[in-house]
């Protein structure tokens, strides 16, 4: 059972929006690193991870996100997540990912972040 994952980047003003879809586990690493690396190269002010099309995140996916924060310390405090289900918002809270990634609960908050 091989998981599917895709990550694409677009830019809205000075914000890089990384659209994620599928399942975030260890198989997502290459796509996620490529997408975030591409976003960082453009030197935006902010990064928004769009989780609306993500159905599943496991412990290896959490490790992957932590690994990205370790690899790219310059994004800490400038990165937000939008579209997480309540369950994954809870997981971001208990793992304390929320201390490093702003969790936005609705589109209005996401727009505010993009246009800040």
């Amino acid at each position, binding site marked *: *059972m091989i998981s599917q994952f895709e990550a694409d980047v677009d830019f809205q003003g000075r914000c890089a929006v990384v659209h994620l879809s599928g399942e975030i586990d260890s198989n997502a690493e290459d796509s996620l690193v490529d997408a975030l690396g591409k976003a960082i190269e453009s030197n935006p002010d902010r990064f928004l991870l769009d989780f609306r099309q993500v159905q599943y995140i496991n*412990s290896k996916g959490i490790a992957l996100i932590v690994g990205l924060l370790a690899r790219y310390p310059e994004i800490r405090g400038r990165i937000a997540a939008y579209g997480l289900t309540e369950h994954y918002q809870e997981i971001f809270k208990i793992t304390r990912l929320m201390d490093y990634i702003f969790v936005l609960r609705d589109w209005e908050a996401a727009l505010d972040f993009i246009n800040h």
Partner: protein
Amino acid sequence: MTENEQAVRTFSLPSVAGNERLAAKKIEELLRPLGLSLRLLERIKTAVAETAMNAIEHGNRYHEDLPVTIETEITPGSLYIRIADYGGQKDTPMAEEPDIDAKLAGIQSPRGWGLFLIHRMADDVRFTTDKERHTVELTFFLVREGDSDFSI
């Protein structure tokens, strides 16, 4: 199911990478008639998937011919899920409590969230081993849709 009845069901899966999602899906189907809250159901699915992933990876070391066996026992107040693999000869490793600050500072590996999530999702977690099998028993207190006295 009446108040004094218990329901026990068992299924097994080959030890193939990714089958933990199949385990969670089957559990969801089994529990659908109980009308659990979405919140509790998602916690159960995450705990089952993480435990099954450990069983496939560390217990059975991806040997497809070694099944992971999952037994559910539903009582009026609790749900017990027992996930067994063939790693009984090994002790359950003591996992280091993950600390995101230490991970970002390079003091801990970014990995090591599986057992942490299992313990946080379930109400109780117990490990048993014999010479052959290693079993993790997950306990969840059941709350039905509309119950309001449940909080994490």
